Structure formats: structure tokens, C-alpha cells
């Protein structure tokens, strides 16, 4: 079982993210799984009945596509095929501020230490750091700055409105 950063600490990764080709013969009988948006949309009722299921969004798939399902999801993953594709930052922020999603928002894929601080500010609270990188060291990335000018998901007040 791999490791994941959740709420600033390293934990065992309970969830398995599945690509669509791994789902051709259906979902595994057991275990917590994160399925692609399209698979969720096609098999929504069966998946809800199975339980232990979450959804991941690829770039181009927006939180709006999950708007009616968020209450039934414990976790939404936002996948970064490449760390330079920044759409996921806006998606995370929307999940938190527009849709008020309280569950886990997890970054998966090309997730690296030097992006974690920004990701946290946009509403991610869980990070599957890329497997070839040291997750302990990546923890440092959560603390790059103690000063921020803008408000963010964790504190919507910009610096000029803070006490």
C-alpha cells in the first residue's frame, strides 16, 4: 500500500485510482476505488450501491459535471497528467468555494513538492506524490511560505482584511 499526504501528514493510501481500461471487466469487488468521471456517470447507481467509491476528474472535466453527486462522494480526485496543466487548481477551488464540497480533494498524477503549497491554497487536502519522489521531503513543500497576499480556500480574506 502506497503513502499519501492527508491534512499535512503522511498516511497509508486507502484508495486506488483506476483508469478506464482497468474497468473494462467491471470494478473490483472490494476496496476503495476512484473511478473516471465517465465511468461514474454510466454506472452511478451500481457504484453507489457498491459503496467505497470516489471519482476523479481529468483536465477538461469540471466539478460542474459532478454537481449533483457531490453529497454522495467522500472524495474527489483531480488528476494532473502533467504538473504544468494548471486547470486543476481552478477545479479544486470551485469544489470548495462554489459547491462547498467538504470531503477529501486529492491531487493525483504528476504531483510534486514544488506545487503543493499552491495546491493546498486552492483547496486540495490530499496529495498522492509521484511514486519516484520522496514523500517525506515533499511534506516540506506545504510550508514554503508563511506570508500570502491573496485570500484562498483556507482563509478567504486577503492580507488587507486580516486582523
Amino acid at each position, binding site marked *: 500500500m502506497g503513502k499519501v499526504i492527508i491534512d499535512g501528514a503522511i498516511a497509508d493510501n486507502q484508495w486506488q485510482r483506476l483508469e478506464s481500461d482497468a474497468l473494462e471487466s467491471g470494478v473490483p469487488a472490494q476496496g476503495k476505488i476512484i473511478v473516471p468521471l465517465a465511468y461514474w456517470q454510466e454506472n452511478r447507481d451500481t457504484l453507489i450501491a457498491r459503496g467505497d467509491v470516489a471519482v476523479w476528474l481529468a483536465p477538461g472535466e469540471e466539478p460542474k459535471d459532478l454537481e449533483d453527486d457531490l453529497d454522495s462522494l467522500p472524495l474527489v480526485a483531480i488528476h494532473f497528467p502533467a504538473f504544468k496543466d494548471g486547470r486543476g*487548481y*481552478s477545479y479544486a477551488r470551485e469544489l470548495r468555494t462554489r459547491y462547498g464540497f467538504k470531503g477529501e480533494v486529492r491531487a493525483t498524477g504528476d504531483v510534486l513538492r514544488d506545487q503543493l503549497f499552491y495546491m493546498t491554497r486552492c483547496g486540495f487536502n490530499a496529495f498522492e506524490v509521484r511514486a519516484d519522489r520522496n514523500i517525506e521531503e515533499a511534506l516540506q513543500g506545504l510550508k*514554503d511560505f508563511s*506570508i500570502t497576499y*491573496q485570500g484562498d480556500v483556507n482563509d478567504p480574506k486577503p492580507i488587507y*482584511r486580516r486582523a
Partner: protein
Amino acid sequence: MYVYQEHDQQLLEERVAQYRDQTRRYLAGELSEDEFLALRLQNGLYIQRYAPMLRISVPYGLLASRQLRRLAHIVRTYDKGFCHVSTRQNIQLNWPSVEEVPDILAELADVQMHAIQTSGNCIRNITTDEFAGVNPKEIEDPRPWCEIIRQWSTFNPEFAYLPRKFKIAVNAVPDADPALIGVHDIGVQLVHGANGETGFQVWAGGGLGRTPMTGSVIGEFVPWQDLLPYLESILRVYNKYGNRDNKYKARIKILVKALGADKYRELVEQEFAELKDGPMTLTKEEVERIQSCFSAPAYQTEDTAALEAKLAEDKAFSRWYHTNTRAHKQAGYRAVTLTLKKTGRVPGDISDEQLEAVADLADQYSFGVLRNSHQQNMVLADVAASDLYDLWKALDALGFATPNLGLITDIVACPGGDLCALANAKSIPVAESIQRRFDNMDYVHDLGLIDLNISGCMNACGHHHIGHIGILGVDKKGKEFYQVTLGGRGDRESRVGEKLGPSFESDQITDVVENIIKLYVEKRLENEPFIDTYERIGMDPFKERIYG
């Protein structure tokens, strides 16, 4: 200038530590080239043809004398003794080493400077009129708004990995575009509402580069309180829907054009509806805090009689005065441009010793502040009438008093193929060759205002599209060629020039410019500037003359 608070300074120091560690990990092999690329670009570090290039941020072009002295020290210690003023009012070092950049950043942080977001696919330096705050035509000082936008954009977590670079400019002059807002990703025009309240007309989707175009008005009147939520809305739409498959189609201009301004506005309004009246709304206290940093310096009452006498008796001084200085809000004061365009010198280059000399002049004559202009010149904005003669003498000794501001030899040119890895052709030798051809200052003055811009490639760092005469370096089977455009403007308004025709070899380009000018001289009406003649007679006579 903006006065750094403790937290502003701390942020810079944390940045230096962060970047130092990133550099260490890169050199230790813990970060791949590609991973470090994105990180170093967000810090203005390019790997160029012969060496790295470090772009240092100069927010809206303002530099204090102590910052100039620190830059002098840096270019002497870490570079070859000179640096370069860019067309976005920044400063570039052409020969730093990757290993020493963290030390350079630490030196910069000591004087409240940095290289944050001077490159990369993020929000870049905020630029404005180099005469901001002293321009008699502006409705309000735009610099506090630039600073407010700067803080919002600095390490904005959502917009660090945009589809492409993103440039914002602010203008406060009506019926003119000294900040080139028409060709920026976002252009912010200060306007006053019916009751005199400050607001902004917000443009989006302008830009130069491969597909030059002017922007569209997205927000007709954005009240000042809503500036940041409105900008955030524009950025969010772009971040979500900008093209990420093809870097040549990734700028916001392509998205605005594809969707149409009306659709783009509709998407922005949807985002804005959620943010309006929320915590991002600007407060009066914050705006006043920032504005207080830009209050007018302690001007004296000036008697201009002595100046008038000097102007009458010294012809060279008078020529310089009428060419390189301009009207000021404050009676008895002038804004002085230091032309970094002496023939034989790279446009926009300045040495360590000159930086120090200029710092001393800023202290002595202009309240310790200097500005960079997007035409690669420098400005001492607050010079008393009684100091002008002495300042002129001092600038002349430095080679910064060439009386050619706005004239054909005041050429804007990117570093080009001599230094830049992106360039298709050289820019600097072309600039020099044209300057040498037009070596008679009386003739240059007779020709009047002509913007001549040269870029070594499509990326258009030399802003060739908005030159009255634009020259673009292109590569044809490994050989340098130059394409000419006419009729671009970056003065009263921003407009993209039209192509003259097939491109020219490097040994032809100076003749072509000369022939364009000869035709203008034949066709012009009395006192008619080049651009007006061009707009009156059109492209065809020029085509005929050059290719006929």
C-alpha cells in the same frame, strides 16, 4: 514608491530560500530539467544561446537610487558589467550563472527587488506609462492600482500554471495608449464614472507575438472596489478554457477571439457574480494605504527665467530640451528621458558605472527615483527647471542625452540572435546599421516622430508590430531575413502594422528603410508625421517604391 512592510520583505526572503533549495535540488539531480524549467522560468531564468538570462522585475518600471546601486553591484559581481532594459520595463542580465542566481536574489531582496514571475506561464510584471504620476493628461495616478494588482498576482496560487504567459498593463491617460493596453492580455484603463468615482474599463485578448491583435472591451465600467474580483474572473475563465495543446494558440487572445468577446464577457460575469461583494472587494483603507506611497514629492516653486535664457543661448541644450523632456503636472518641472540609444551602443544597455552615475543623478535631481520605459529608455520624472541645464551636461557626459527621443534612431530592439536562443535573426546589428545611415541629427529631427521597432523573432519582444516601421527577423533555410511592417502604432492608440511584402536580406534592410523614408519625405504635407502620411496615402505607394 511602494514602501515595503515587514510582511512584504519576509515574503521575498522566503522566496529566496525556496528558490535556493530548488536550485540545490536541481544541481543535485533531484529535479529533472523539465521540472526545474517551470520553476526557474517563474523566477525569470532562461537558458540562452551562450549563457542563462535572468530577468529582474521592475514593477511598473520604478527604481529607487539604492536599487540602481545594488543592480550596479550585481552586474559587476555576477555579470559582465552591463544589463539591459526590456520592453516590459524590466532589467535583464545576460551572463549570470545558474548556481549564483540564489545569491543574486538574496542581494536583490535586500533592496526589495526580485525576479518573481518575470517569465513562465503566469502573470508577469504589471506595466504602465513611464510618466505615470507626472503626466498632465492622466486622470489619476495609475501606479497605486498597478501595485494593488501586483500584490494580487504575486504567488497567486490558482494562476501559476496558466496555458501561457499573461501580461497586464494599466493606463490612466484618456485618448492615448502610453502603456500599450490595447496589445496586452489584459489592459486596464482608468476612467471616472458619472459622479467622478474611479472605475476601470477592462480590455482582454490583446497581444503581439505570432498572432498580433488588439483586445476587446470585456468590462465597460468596473467600479474600483471590484477590480481584483473582476481580474480574477477573467483569469479563471482563461485558466479553465485556454488552449493547452498548442502553445501558439494558448494566449488569451486566441480564446477571446474563438469565443467572441460577448461570450467571454458572459463567462466572466458568471464568475464575477460569485465574487462580487466578497472578501476580495478592495477596501478604501487599503487603497488609501497604497496611494499614500505615491504621493507627490516636495516640489519647490520654480523660476523659469534662467532656463528660458539658457534655451535661447544654447542651441544644443534647446534641442535636447524640446526632444527629450516633456511637460509635467507640476509647474516649473519637466520629465526627462535618458535616451539609451546612442549609435554604436546596444539599445537599452547600461553599464554598472552608468547605473551608479544615474543613481546619483536621481538623488540629486529627481527625488531618488528613476523609471524604465517600454521604449528601453530611462526617465527622471521630477526635474526642476533650474536643474535642467546641469542635468543635461551630466547626461551628455554619460552618453544619455542623444536628442533622439521618439525619432528614427530611438530604435527599440530585442537582444536578438546575438544573445537570445529563441531568435531567428540578429536585431542589434540591424539597429546599428540604421542608426549609422541616419547619422545627420538635423535630418533626423526634420523627419520627426518615427517609431522603429525590431524583433529577432515572432515572439515580438522588440514590439515590431506596433512600430510605425516594424522589422521582424525571420529564418529562411538557415539564413537571416527581415520582414517589414508599416503603420503599426503604440502611441495615440495601439494598432498592429501591415506587412509590406516579401522579406529582405540583411544587407538590404537599411536601404529599404531609407527608401521608405525618402518616399515619406516626398509625399508628406507640411509638418505631417510619418504615421499620418502613411495613413493618408496607404500602403500601395510604399510597395511600389520598394518592389516596383
